[in-house]
C-alpha cells in the first residue's frame, strides 16, 4: 500500500521518571515508523516492551517529568517542535486530529452523565452549539459503532463492558480525527465481544479515511486487523513488515517465538510453546541485543552490540544479526 504519509515518527526516545532520586528510565529507544492515510499499523510484543509508552507519547499523555526526543510529524506538522516535551501541539492534536481509546476507556466514562451528553462535549464547537445538529451527530456516531440511538439516554452503568467500549470509540471519533490510537481496546473483553468491537473498528476504516495504530499483545488479533505490524522488544522496534510477511516469513527470532506461542484452533498442546525468561527490566543497563539472553539463534556478536534495523525484503525490516548475516550469505 503506497498511500500518502499521515504520521511520521523518527528516532523517538522516551524517558520516564523513576522513584525519587533514581535516574530516569530510558523506555522507548530509537523507534521510527510511519502510518499512511487509511492505514492500520499494529504494535505488538510482550507487556513491558514499551508499546503503550510509544503510543501515549504521540499525544502527550505521558506522566509529568517524562522526556521525549525525536520527531513526530502529523500531516507534515512537527508536533514536538524540539521545545517542550509535552508540548501544547501534542495536546491539541489529541482530541482534534488524533482520537485515543485505551483498555480502561470503558471504565472512565463519567458515571453521572448520560452517554449522549458526554459525546456532545467532544463534538467540534460549530456542531456542538447547534442542538439539532449535535443530536443528529451523536446518533450518527452511535450508529457507526453499532449502537442504537437509545444508548444516548443511558448512563454508563446501564451498559455492558463491550457497549461502553464502543461508546468510548464513538467519543474518540466525535471530533472526526484522522488517526485513532487504540491501546489494547479489547483486552478486557471476552472473545465474542472483542470480535464485535474489532468489527466496529474495521467498519470505521472501510472508507479509507481513518488511520489506526492498534497496540495489542495479541499477535493474531493484530495480524487480522492491521495492514502492517511493528514488533517491539525492550523499548525497541525489532521488526517491521506487512501482516502477511509477519505471519508467513517473520524474520526476527522473537517474532517467530511469539507466533509459535499463539495457539491456533486445532493446534496440539506440544505445538504451543512458551518463550523462556522474560523481557529485561528497562531500568537496568545492558549491552548487546536485548533479546540475546532468550534467543535460540544467538551467537558471538549478539552480546556486544545492538543490531540496527536492516531491510531484508520488500517493506520488511529486521533488527537481528542472525538474519542480517544470513541475508548476506543468501
Amino acid at each position: 500500500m503506497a498511500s500518502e504519509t499521515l504520521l511520521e515518527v523518527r528516532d523517538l526516545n522516551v524517558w520516564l521518571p523513576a522513584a525519587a532520586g533514581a535516574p530516569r528510565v530510558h523506555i522507548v529507544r530509537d523507534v521510527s515508523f510511519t502510518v499512511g492515510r487509511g492505514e492500520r499499523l499494529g504494535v505488538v510484543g510482550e507487556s513491558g516492551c514499551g508499546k503503550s509508552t510509544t503510543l501515549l507519547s504521540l499525544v502527550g499523555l505521558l506522566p509529568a517529568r517524562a522526556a521525549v526526543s525525536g520527531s513526530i510529524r502529523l500531516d507534515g506538522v512537527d508536533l514536538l517542535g524540539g521545545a517542550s516535551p509535552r508540548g501544547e501541539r501534542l495536546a491539541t492534536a489529541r482530541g482534534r486530529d488524533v482520537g485515543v481509546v485505551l483498555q480502561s476507556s470503558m471504565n472512565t466514562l463519567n458515571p453521572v452523565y448520560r452517554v449522549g451528553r458526554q459525546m456532545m462535549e467532544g463534538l467540534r464547537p460549530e456542531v456542538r452549539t447547534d442542538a439539532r445538529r449535535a443530536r443528529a451527530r451523536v446518533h450518527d456516531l452511535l450508529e457507526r459503532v453499532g449502537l442504537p440511538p437509545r444508548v444516548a439516554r443511558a448512563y454508563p452503568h446501564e451498559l455492558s463492558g463491550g457497549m461502553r467500549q464502543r461508546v468510548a470509540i464513538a467519543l474518540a471519533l466525535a471530533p472526526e480525527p484522522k488517526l485513532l490510537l487504540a491501546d489494547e481496546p479489547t483486552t478486557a473483553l471476552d472473545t465474542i465481544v472483542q470480535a464485535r468491537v474489532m468489527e466496529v473498528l474495521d467498519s470505521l476504516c472501510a472508507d479509507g479515511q481513518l488511520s489506526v495504530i492498534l497496540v495489542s499483545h495479541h499477535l493474531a488479533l493484530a495480524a487480522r486487523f492491521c495492514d502492517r505490524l511493528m514488533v517491539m522488544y525492550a523499548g525497541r522496534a525489532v521488526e517491521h513488515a506487512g501482516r502477511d510477511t509477519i505471519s508467513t516469513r517473520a524474520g526476527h527470532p522473537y517474532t517467530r517465538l511469539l507466533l509459535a506461542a499463539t495457539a491456533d484452533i486445532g493446534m496440539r498442546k506440544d505445538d504451543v510453546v512458551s518463550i523462556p525468561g522474560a523481557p529485561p527490566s528497562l531500568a537496568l543497563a545492558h549491552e548487546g541485543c536485548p533479546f540475546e539472553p532468550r534467543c535460540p539463534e544467538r551467537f558471538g556478536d549478539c552480546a556486544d552490540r545492538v543490531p540496527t534495523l536492516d531491510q531484508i525484503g520488500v517493506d520488511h525490516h529486521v533488527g537481528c544479526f542472525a538474519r542480517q548475516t544470513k541475508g548476506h550469505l543468501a
Partner: protein
Amino acid sequence: MRPLGLNIRDLVIDYPARRGGAKTRAVDGVNLRLDRGEFVGIVGESGSGKSSIANAIMGLASVTSGEISLGDTDLTALRGKRARHARRALQLVMQDPFEALDPHLSVLRLVEEPLIVHKMGRSKQERRSRVREALEQVGLSPAEDFEGRRPHELSGGQRQRVCVAAALIVNPDVVIADEPVSMLDVSVRAGVLHMLDASRRRGNAVLMITHDLPTAAAFCDRLIVMHQGRIVEEGPSLRVVQDPSHQYTRELLDATPALGAHSPSAGS
C-alpha cells in the same frame, strides 16, 4: 485410578435480586463429570456462568439446587469443618496472579501456607522441602533462587506459577483453574498450562475455565461450551472445534482471531 472424581448434577445457581430487579439465574441445570486424570475445559463468553460453577465447587457461591459430589461425598450437604476437610482435595487457581498473592509474603511462605492450613507436613523442615519440590515442579527452578522473593519481584507468569505451586502442593484430587492464563502474555501461557497438564498426568483432575478456545482445545481432553447458564455443547476437544454441532460454538469459533485466517474486509 479411582473411578470417580467430581460429579455435578442438575446444578442451579441463582443470585438474589438487586435494586428491585429480577434474580439472576447464573447456572441453569448443569451436569458435569470430571474423572481423575482428565483435563476438561469450560468455554463461553463472560456472564455465561463459568465462574459461578467454579465458586460453587469451592464452596464460595451458594448452590440453589443440585448436587456437587467428590467421590461419594456430597459437598453441598456439608457445613463448617467437615466441608473444609472434604474440600482439601480441591484447589482453586484464580485468574489474577497479582491479586491472589499477599505482597508481604515470600514465595516460600506463600507456597507453604496451604500445608499449614491443612495441617500437612510434620516439621518445618519437611514443609520446606515440599515447597522446593513444588517450585521445581512448576518450573521455578532452581527453587532457592525464588523462595526468598516477594510477588513484586516476579513477572506475571512467575506469579501464576507460584499460585499453581500453592495449589498443587497439597496434592489435590481436583484442580479448578478459573481463567488461569487470561492475564498473562501469550509467551508464558503455555508454560503454566503445561504445569497443569503435568499434574493431570500425575492423576489429578483439572477443570479449566477460559474464553480462549484455541488454548482450551489444545490442552483439554474434553470441552464444555456454556451459553447463558447452560451447557450447549460438550465433547472431545478436537471434535468440538473442528466439527461444532451448536450454532453458538460456531459463533465462538468465528470470533476467535487466528493467524491463518484474516478478515476479508481488512485491506491488504
